[in-house]
């Protein structure tokens, strides 16, 4: 059961990282450091593109009030797992 959970989490992380690479179109060495408004490429436009891509790829619905809260890679992973 725990193993299944871990495999599932790994799959989600991989998907999210793939989405980040698609949206930002840059080489990312450390995903953990990525943060909205602090990472140069992560501006408001990229943020909304990222949210829409997450919704589409992961087949989830992100609420209006959650859009601003998902402001770093770590927060997004924590929200999804």
């Amino acid at each position: 059961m725990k193993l299944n959970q871990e495999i599932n989490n790994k799959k989600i992380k991989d998907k999210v990282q793939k989405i980040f690479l698609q949206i930002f179109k840059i080489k990312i060495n450390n995903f953990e450091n990525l943060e909205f408004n602090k990472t140069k490429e992560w501006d408001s436009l990229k943020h909304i593109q990222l949210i829409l891509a997450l919704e589409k790829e992961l087949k989830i619905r992100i609420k209006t009030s959650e859009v601003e809260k998902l402001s770093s890679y770590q927060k997004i992973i924590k929200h999804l797992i």
Partner: protein
Amino acid sequence: MLFHSIIYLIIFLPFVFSVYFLLRKFTDNDGKYFIIFSGIFFYGWWNVNFTPLIICSVLFNYFISQKIINLENNSKKKVILLTGIAFNILYLGIFKYTDFVIDNLNYIFELNIQNFDLPFPLAMSFFTFQTIAYLVDCYDGEVEKGSLKDYSLFIIFFPQLIAGPIVRYNNMMSQFNTIQNKWINSKNLLLGLTIIAIGLFKKVILADNLSINVDYGFENYDTINFVESWIVSFSFTLQLYFDFSGYIDMATGSALLFNILLPKNFDSPFKATSLIEFWKKWHITLFNFLMNYIYFPILRSLQKVNYFNAMIVTLLVFIISGIWHGPSYGYILFGTLHGLGLIVNHTFNKFNLFKMNKIIGWLITINYVNFTLIFFRCENLDSALSIIKSMLDINNISFKTNFFDNYYIVIVYVLSLIIVFFFKNVNFLIENYFEKKEHIK
């Protein structure tokens, strides 16, 4: 009642503070009703006739919010949410923009419709946005079913009632309901009083003295010379900052006395080296509202989110922000110019044209903000254009001015400039204190 008035500082605030904590210490009462009634009194002090308007808004929106929370059918929920939002915008629009619309209709179609001369109820612009955010949060399931008492407290809590910061329900209620916040906290009290004193200094010593030259300059816009026009425009930029951020400091300090931490609203905006950065430091809670409840939802509703769409929505959002500030073309132009400025800034970043030197970026930003604020302050476009013309009239440079005719005013200017460009702001005090508190825990 104004924060810098004697009645507020010497009577109202100490009285409400004392009774609130006495109630909580010696009775089972949570003091919330007392704070609500104090808020209504605070609001009614200015004009008692407007109190029914805020009470009606609170009752209506509470009813709508509970309907949204209780419904399970998503499409019905959405209809109620949109009705609620439309009602709030209409409510604000009737009081704030009716005469503006009539004036425009009269001008365009050469009509002669009489103005209604409706007085504008204080704080309405702020509590309208705060309410809309709350209704959306209810729709999203972020807010749980709550009491009318809690909702009233959220809107009518007097420190943030009149001019923000725009607060969020969960953030406020979690603080009010924290058991440790039931008692007087001497450190919060000390910090709160210090921040009130800083806000008072900004408002009374700096802003009010800067306003002397501002008022003179904007009244005599057609006679002031090159140097005077620059002094007048920068004086207004500084005055507005000290006035508004001083007000917010007094609000933050007052709320801290009740162990409530309000969100930060200013963060040394004149140190920004780009317009994008400026809007992360100026009227932060308004900008966050515009982003989260207008910009993101509009972009999400579009079929395709691309750079072009995002820039159009940016412009639209800032035009809305201009209209929200007040029924005048000066405000609308201010919003539009900031929208356009942000488009230029984003385009510059997107195409990575060249690396902007920080000092040049800072100079461009502060001057752009300063020029746009002339439209914000002027009563009509002619006077704004006249001041800008004087500022650009390099053939007519004269250093003759009576603006600095006493040492006191010179000291105010020097202090103002040192504070905005070199000093840390009150957030530093707050963050430092709360960080230490976390550490101790």
